């Protein structure tokens, strides 16, 4: 790395290219991991939501996993990959690297809390939608405070959550997509908070992955 900065000769350019390609491959790997995590979480959480409305499952479970539109999990996966790559990038741009609780155990905790929020929204019966919204909002912000605590994370989370909710609403109005639940208000009160929590979680994972990569890179630089 250090050589690549100053180099004009061919070999140094070669190493520079090597570094670049290395970076892009790790980027792709990272993106793929985030994508698969996103798809998996989307499937599982979708299942949780489906359970709320169906008292008993028909014997063929597998079909119920894919009961919603086929393109929803890939969309979630892509979104999570983008978010997971965006977070460390923004950290880098802002020049304030995220230092808070950079451990895998903390990330796992974050994911568990996220699933728990989904679980609660699916299983717990709330008196009304306002209560549901408030509770979920409090839980999401608690998640952010516990595991993130960065302004950029909060801002990005809010922006993405709003955008996602908006786009979902648009999709619904255009009839591309339908909610599984007949209760429309329920979904609307539920969606932004879940989006926010999901953004925070994916950002956390993405940052942790990026940290790992950073470690690798710095090691390599050391070696050079």
């Amino acid at each position, binding site marked *: 790395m250090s050589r690549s900065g100053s180099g004009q000769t061919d070999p140094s350019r070669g190493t520079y290219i090597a570094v670049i390609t290395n970076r892009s491959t790790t980027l792709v790997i990272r993106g793929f991991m985030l994508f698969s995590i996103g798809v998996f979480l989307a499937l*599982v959480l979708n*299942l949780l939501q489906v359970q709320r409305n169906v008292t008993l*499952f028909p014997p063929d*479970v597998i079909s119920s996993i894919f009961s919603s539109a086929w393109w929803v999990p890939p969309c979630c996966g892509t979104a999570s990959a983008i978010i997971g790559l965006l977070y460390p990038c923004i950290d880098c741009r802002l020049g304030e690297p995220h230092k808070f609780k950079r451990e895998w155990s903390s990330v796992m*905790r974050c994911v568990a809390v996220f699933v*728990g929020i989904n679980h609660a929204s699916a299983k717990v*019966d*709330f008196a009304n939608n306002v209560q549901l919204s408030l509770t979920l909002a409090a*839980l999401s912000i608690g998640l952010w405070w516990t595991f993130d605590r960065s302004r950029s994370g909060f801002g990005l989370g809010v922006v993405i959550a709003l955008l996602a909710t908006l786009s979902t609403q648009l999709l619904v109005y255009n009839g591309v997509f339908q909610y599984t639940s007949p209760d429309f208000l329920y979904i609307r009160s539920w969606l932004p908070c879940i989006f926010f929590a999901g953004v925070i979680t994916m950002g956390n994972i993405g940052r942790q992955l990026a940290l790992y990569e950073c470690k690798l890179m710095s090691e390599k630089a050391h070696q050079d």
Partner: protein
Amino acid sequence: MTVRERLREKISAAFYRHGLLCASYPVPIILFTSASILACCYPLLRLPLPGTGPVEFTTRVRDYTVPSHEPQGDLGERPDWYRGPPVAYIQQVLVKAAVSPWDSTLVPVDVFRSPLGRVFSLLEEIRNHVHNDGSGVRSLEALCLQVTDLLPGLRRMQTVLPEHGCLLVSPGNYWQNQRELFDSDPDLLKTVHQHEPKGLHTSATLRDLLFGVPVKHTGVSLYSRKRVVTYTITMVLGSYDARFLSSLRARLRQLHPSVNCSLREDHMVHVHFKEEIGMAELIPLVTTYIILFAYIYFSTRKIDMVKSKWGLALAAVVTVLSSLLMSVGLCTLFGLTPTLNGGEIFPYLVVVIGLENVLVLTKSVVSTPVDLEVKLRIAQGLSNESWSIMKNMATELCIILIGYFTLVPAIQEFCLFAVVGLVSDFFLQMFFFTTVLSIDIRRMELADLNRRLPAEAGMPPPKPGPLRPREAPPPPRPSPYTITLQTPAFRNLRLPKRLRVVYFLARTRLAQRFIMVGTVIWIGILAYTDPAGLRTYLAAQVSEQSPLGEGGAGGLPPHLGGASVFPGAGGDPASTLSVLPAPAEPTPLPENQSQGHHGAPREGVPHQAQAPPLVPQISWGAEDEEGWRRLSFRHWPSLFSYYNITLAKRYISILPVIPVTLHLSPREAIETRHPQDTRHPPPPSLKTNDLPADLTFIGTYGEGSKQVINPPSLSRVAALGLAAGVLLVLLLFCLYRVLCPRNYGQNGVAHGRRRRGDLPCDDYGYSPPISEISPLLLRGHSMDIECLASDGMLLASCCLAGQIRVWDAQTGDYTHTCHNLGGGTEPGGGVFDEDEGYPLRRRTTPRPALFEDQPDLTPLIDTNFDSQPPSHLLLTPPRDGFDFGGLVERAYLEHEPPSPGLTASYPSPSPPSGPPPQRRRSLGAVWAMELRGNLIAAGRSSGKLELWDAVEGSLRCSNEDGVSGITALAFLNNRIVAARLDGSLDFFTVDINKPLGLLQYRGPPGRSNIPPSPCYSSEDVISCQLTRSVQCAHQKPITVLRAAAGRVVTGSQDHTVRVYRLEDSCCLFTLQGHSGGITAIYIDQTMVLASGGQDGAICLWDVLTGSRVSHVYGHRGDVTSLVCTTSCVISSGLDDLISIWDRSTGIKLYSIQQEVGCGASLGVISESLLVTGGQGCVSFWDLNFGDLLQTVYLGQSSDGQGVRQLVVLNNAAIVCDFGSELSLVYVPSVLEKLD
């Protein structure tokens, strides 16, 4: 001092005292904690065990009313689920039908065709039954549970299960309840079978559902022994009408009286079903648990620096789990019954409570100074973390409190549990985990207490203040001139992971215990869920044995008592004859026509068997009373689930069965016969020779029925076996992967790959306590050091400039400033600048004499070998030392040993002054140098061999017999062997013209294991004679020359190694085996010879026989260096790999990857300590495990020159070159450990 600070101080002090308490009385505290855990968990015993088995509750039929929704106070044993109306009432009509008397003209199909045919008329009867009393007309249509569509996935069942109407199932459903279809069905069994699912099925099958009795009890089989067909007509009623039901019962009884039936009809059973955990619900649950385990894994992975990592991890998990149990127990104690699904919220609770505090505690405690007492360490660790623990706890409590105010009941309950769990977790952390930690730390310290005790004894008592400020984290990278010594505990015996796993398993007998516990649990589950009718069996046993039990069996005919043990034999009157289990024994067989009919072979032993009864008797037993019990407990849920009705957390009421007995005459059976029936079931073909000779009719039937019935069970067994086999293979594979490393023979790679300088520093910025040792820099050479030689006492170095400097290598106490070779006898030796001969400063402090036994050379010696690291004596310029440089070039030219007279002529202010002897650079660079005793043998590129007096710095003699440059030298006893560039080998003898008695031996006795070298005094005349010259020792230049144990070994570019005897310079062996030039040779006193070549191969030779012991390819590229210990061979190569080989087997133990361009220098300090040179540093490795112990940085800049040469001195010091400097590193702490 603010309130906050005061609070903080108070908390800290409290924690400190608490830590002291915990560490002082570990056992009582652990006992107390366990007792309190048990006490808090005691209320849990009252909670029902979790399980999916249905729960029953029996009420009387007579005064039955639908229970109300509201709980009505205390109603005795009434369970809390018994509220509101049930999902459905189940009314079963149990039909037992037989053709009697059995006729020889009847075919097996007749056993069940006509009895089954009667179901249609019965159905008709039931459907049309109308009860008419004053309040109105009731029919089944009005009462029954109306069902709609089947679930979409069950299209194939549409033909057999009712839709859009009454849920009324019977065997007639197979034929759409139409008699015509039944009559025209050529093969009834096939019709029944075609709806059976293929393969394994655990829940109720369609056949169970329609027949209402287990398959083997239906009697619908060609090989039925009893010839009694049993089936039920199941009515599912939506509402309960006692009068209608009783009228139906009376009507059926009147139509088909059951003579000997005395079933109890006064109890109805309510069955409550637990929540079904389906696959779909399991997936999120499993996901959360996986996340939970990942969390626990990642958390406990961070525990380090303790005696037993696994033990502490276990303690941490136990802490969290038992705090959860305690919270549930406490909540139950105070009357809060948990309504949440425990399995679902459990992972979230664990995550909320978290393992963080425990880990933080551990970190904090292990980061306290190791030399403190255990008690104080615990106390300090606790008090260091007290504030953050309290802060975290307060924050979490606040968050949970906020959650409590969401006013959602479920969340409130969760929060309540979490609060209690947090508090009990805190309690457990403080008492249980801290104590366990103290025990662990104590164990760890006991391990190396023996060594440390003297050092600790002299230590002042540690700071008593409860408020020891938190230590600043040590710098992540040690500053130059420091070496980092890890705590001794870190170097504790560390077995490879797989061995530890195996040992752990072996030590704790874990496998056996797991199996035992598993068996117990399995048996418990079996008994709990009661799938095999175990309870019925036991009840029957009891009722059979005690006459009191007859009350439970009602007015049973006494002869049925024994039969009820085996429900399958319930209708078999034969079994009533004997107490023995009837079906297991072949019963005696009277002569019977049916034998002839079936043509079964019976050779002479018919009398032991019993014929099927001539008149099939229909009997009613206790087991018929509640025949549904024999069905799978998923029977009813699956029936209802077909219509998308869940029974989870709901209950159904099962009404007493209505018995119906049908006796059909043979004539009727024959009339209803289908034309194909007679020929359809051919008599089972028997391979008589395969069967035992005493097989009889029944035997064949039994065999036949086995053949027919067994296939499904056989396939089941086969599938199970296959699954088990696959599982076993997978398990073995996993075990293999765990136990055997992927790269076989390189098991050390995992930790061997640890980079140098990579200290075990974790995320908390904690790194183990370090003790610092400075390497001693010996400066003085102006150019890079070329040669380095030492005999343990002295150290000679030669630089590219041709200077030879001699240093004292012996001084262990490096804090003294200089290593004044020979200067010890000279008070106030001067320091000369080699260029001007001008004294810069004069030493005034007299040096203690180093060698008392030497002659006083004070007047003769004028040289000073001072060398002072600048860190110790900053005044001295870094160029001092014993200078053999170019000052007295003239003297050198005259080949005169410098004499005192000559030296006196030099201008020098110091009274005993003399010119430092010098050498001319023009004579060629010194290519090889050896040091023995006082003599330095130097081989020059010009081919000249010179002998210098190391003490005086004077040239004693020289030899210019050869012209080719000397590439390597060996100096052993009084012989010098010189290898030359042209491949020749010259043997010189050093003669001392002096009686041997005057030879002095130097060196502290016992300190070194090499023979003490003779000490030549300056008065001796030393001559060096060429005794033998082997002109063509090798065809190509000699690269390596080693001498030990009376042998001289040379290695050359010509791929061979030669062994010479030192005494007579006789070539003993020429060792061939390398396919490249020899680059490294090792030989030691024990006659071990190892050689490494440019081909990367390493050969071990037997020096006595000249045979090759082993030959391995270890490196890609040259082998640059080779060292042996008694057990292993260490090699380094151009591929920057250090490989450690087992010496006896030649198997690679592990390898260490070094950084690129690292020096190839190696040294072994002891059996287990390896030192390698690197870029500006030297590293110490534990040879046993390949662990990096420490890295010593030699200079300020880490990118300094590599260490090319490394000499291990006998006193566990090492000397290495570092550019133009020498570095002397003492490893005292390592030495301590080694001794």
